[in-house]
């Protein structure tokens, strides 16, 4: 595991490059090195299809001179090459426009220890490859053992170990290691012209937290076969229940709309809305990069700003945007530690859970849709419009009566936030953006 201030060779390389940049005319310079190893195995119908194992590293940097910025990156870590890249970037910076909001963040003191965030599982780098292959095979085997399953997209097991090193000319110099593992399965059910498909995966930082093969396979089977023999429904407006993966998808769109870059660029419908009531009273949305062991957790962002907990929506009121240093300066705000490369990333962005079990929410549907999957594009942050292809389960009198497909749902995020009637108690952090089951009072469903 990473020891504080124990300088790795890559950290020394980054520190030297920062010094080189400063002595060759850069006012500020930031160097990031990612070093990783990856293992992945795909199995299908009981056999290994692909087995991939690799290590790679890459360096990226930005230099600022006279408030002008240039970026560069390279996978070739040869010292002479890198110095050349820095020198070029300094020259290139002169051709950019002067931008007073550019530049590195001021150094902030941070008490956050990477080790306390549980980002690294020492078991993952030493996992026996045969065990990983067996896990994938076992998961698929259980999936295929169900008679209703007619074909398989295969199962995969993947692990990644990443070391991030960040050094800048403001005195920041830290590194940390993190691990990921994931086990997933994709299945088909039904005959040739009436196939349905489903998938399920578990991703964790710690191997022992991964869902079991049985759990993943049974969830995948259930999610696949419940779509068999779908019907088309008439075009109508109806209440819609979002399953947790669908709530997460909706929150992903909300995330894009509260991202500081979209705000200062005025490409979000939530521009200039801080302090406004944008959602119902029961809505609380947070971003929390400090929750130990979660996928969106990190000690500091890609600029070295410490992670924090940020309230986005509180009792329906828009409290904060998520910012990197640049967007924060543009908006006269403070960085929330969400810098991610040149952009802004979620660090466990979630809708707070309610108290209702999901089954209870479904039982309140007199007639309506449970949204289980969407496909396609059709999200427009500039006005909040949503329009997507959808798959669902039709509910009458609180009971699921049949699956539906070939429908689209459409609505507007601004109005959806005000029409979340019920919130489930089933919040799980399966990805860096997460939410529980919710019920929306009405969406347009286009069908026949």
């Amino acid at each position: 595991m990473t020891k504080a201030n124990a300088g790795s060779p890559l950290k020394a390389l980054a520190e030297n490059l920062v010094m080189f940049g400063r002595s060759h005319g850069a006012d500020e310079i930031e160097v990031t090195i990612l070093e990783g190893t990856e293992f992945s195995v795909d199995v299908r119908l009981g056999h290994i299809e692909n087995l991939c194992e690799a290590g790679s590293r890459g360096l990226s940097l930005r230099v600022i001179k006279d408030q002008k910025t240039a970026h560069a990156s390279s996978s070739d870590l040869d010292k002479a090459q890198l110095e050349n890249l820095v020198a070029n970037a300094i020259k290139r910076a002169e051709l950019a426009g002067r931008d007073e909001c550019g530049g590195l963040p001021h150094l902030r003191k941070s008490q956050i220890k990477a080790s306390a965030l549980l980002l690294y599982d020492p078991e993952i780098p030493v996992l026996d490859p045969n065990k990983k292959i067996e896990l994938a095979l076992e998961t698929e085997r259980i999936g295929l053992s169900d008679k209703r399953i007619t074909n398989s997209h295969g199962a995969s097991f993947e692990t990644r170990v990443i070391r991030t090193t960040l050094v800048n000319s403001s005195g920041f110099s830290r590194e940390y290691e993190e691990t990921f593992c994931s086990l997933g399965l994709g299945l088909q059910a039904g005959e040739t012209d009436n196939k349905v498909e489903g998938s399920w995966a578990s991703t964790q930082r710690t191997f022992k937290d991964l869902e079991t093969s049985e759990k993943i396979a049974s969830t995948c089977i259930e999610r696949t076969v419940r779509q068999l023999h779908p019907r088309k429904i008439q075009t109508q407006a109806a209440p819609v229940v979002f399953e947790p993966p669908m709530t997460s998808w909706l929150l992903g769109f909300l995330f894009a709309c509260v991202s500081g870059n979209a705000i200062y660029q005025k490409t979000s419908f939530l521009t200039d809305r801080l302090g406004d009531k944008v959602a119902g009273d029961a809505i609380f949305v947070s971003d929390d990069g400090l929750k130990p062991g979660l996928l969106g957790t990190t000690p500091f962002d890609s600029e070295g700003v410490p992670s924090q907990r940020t309230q986005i929506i509180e009792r329906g009121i828009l409290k904060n945007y998520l910012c990197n240093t640049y967007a924060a300066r543009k908006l006269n705000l403070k960085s929330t530690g969400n810098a991610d490369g040149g952009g802004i990333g979620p660090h466990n962005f979630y809708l707070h859970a309610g108290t209702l079990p999901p089954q209870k929410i479904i039982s309140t549907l007199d007639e309506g849709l449970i949204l289980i999957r969407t496909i396609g594009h059709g999200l427009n942050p500039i006005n909040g419009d949503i329009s997507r292809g959808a798959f669902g389960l039709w509910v009458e009198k609180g009971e699921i009566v049949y699956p539906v497909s070939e429908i689209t749902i459409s609505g507007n995020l601004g109005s959806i936030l005000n029409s979340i009637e019920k919130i489930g108690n089933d919040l799980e952090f399966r990805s860096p953006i997460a939410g529980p089951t919710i019920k929306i009072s009405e969406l347009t469903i286009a069908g026949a």
Partner: protein
Amino acid sequence: MKHLAYKDHFHLSDSDLQKILHVALSRGGDFAEIYLEHKSFSLINMEEDIIKETSESISLGLGIRVNSGDKTGYAYTNDISIEKIKNAALTAASISSESSAQDPTSFCPTPLPHNFYPVLDPAHLASLGDKISLVRQTYDAAQKFDPKIKKVKASLVDQIQHVRIVNSEGLSIADGRPLVKLVCLAVAEHSGKREAGYCGGGGKVGLEYFRHVLTPEGIGQEAAKESLHLLEATSPPAGEMPVVLAPGHSGVLIHEAVGHLLEADFIRKKTSIFWDKMGSQVGLPTLTIYDDPTLLNFRGSYNVDDEGTIPKKTPLIVEGKLVGLLQDRLSSRLMGLPETGHGRRQDFTCIPIPRMSNTYIDKGEYDPEEIIKSVNKGFYAQKFQGGQVEDSGKFTFSVSSGFLIENGRLTSPVKQATLIGTNIDILNKIEKVGADLQFGFQTGTCGKEGQAVPVTDGCPTLKISRMTVGGQS
């Protein structure tokens, strides 16, 4: 016209490569390959009236693949010391566990038989100043187009990718591939409404493209026009109705509804709805679809695919009959069918898989005006954000702008609609095919299994007798 010949960045001799192939086959695999890639990439971004960002990026690495029957072992590295490469070769070799080692055939470099991307003025050799002025011209054209244009973003991205492929069957072939794209996003605002328009162009071209084919001014103005058009637009009606697809951008439909499901891996695995339909009539006789990696200077074209196969214009559907697949090396061997040169990969970290290149519906005989006139009440889909398909044939595509058709004429502008259907059903509803084949923006990227590759799509004006349109009213 120049051909951007392969430039070596690896300093590995042919005998080094031969030794690595030896190691790769040391555990009895039946095929080994080394994919060497060097890519340099440059980006210029203009926003808020200044050049906000310039970026330069270099990536260098190689991937080693070993096949043993239908199994693939893969390893890659960007540390190109002989030691590390041999380790990678051993890792890939472990997919096979036989005791007898195979000997690779010694290779001798094959020259490329053609050049599908002749350029005059290679972007990667142009000065940063010249490239910045292209971006500025684009930006200014959009911004000055109308006072309602409140915000513009313009960017130029160019890269040169050098690839070399050597394999245990004696192949050694290399290619230098340029790729350029100039894009503009314009945001228009009026009485509380805000809409964004987009336009872009490029391909495997040189900068002369922006003088002769699509000028920066043209790109900027088109993005501005689109955003103004959307300010006037309303949400489309929801439900089933006749749909007319505009030529060019609507090629996305065929990319999703047909192209993906004819990628040979999905057919071989019987997950595609088309797997048992080869040779059968799946559409009306007016429908003919090709995938053609050989179109001159197109974004999706290549002289050689990422496994060293010379690509061919590949008929997929001819007069409504399913006739062809998009093959990579592995699938064609396993299926006993000829290769088509569609094995592509995002970069050296990825295993090649069957992919599309430039996919299009061939022109038919209808006058586009006549097609619109034949619709009493329906939807005219003009520009698209993209689409998605599942193996089961269910697909959607997202229309960013279009018009209502009323009494055979385009009337009110419409925005943001999703079209959804099942491919087998839709192919039989393509009633009329126009004579006006066009291609969409040369800026598209297709994703499959996490790998992004540049593609283009095209089609003439099409009439689909009925399709579900998802709108809000």
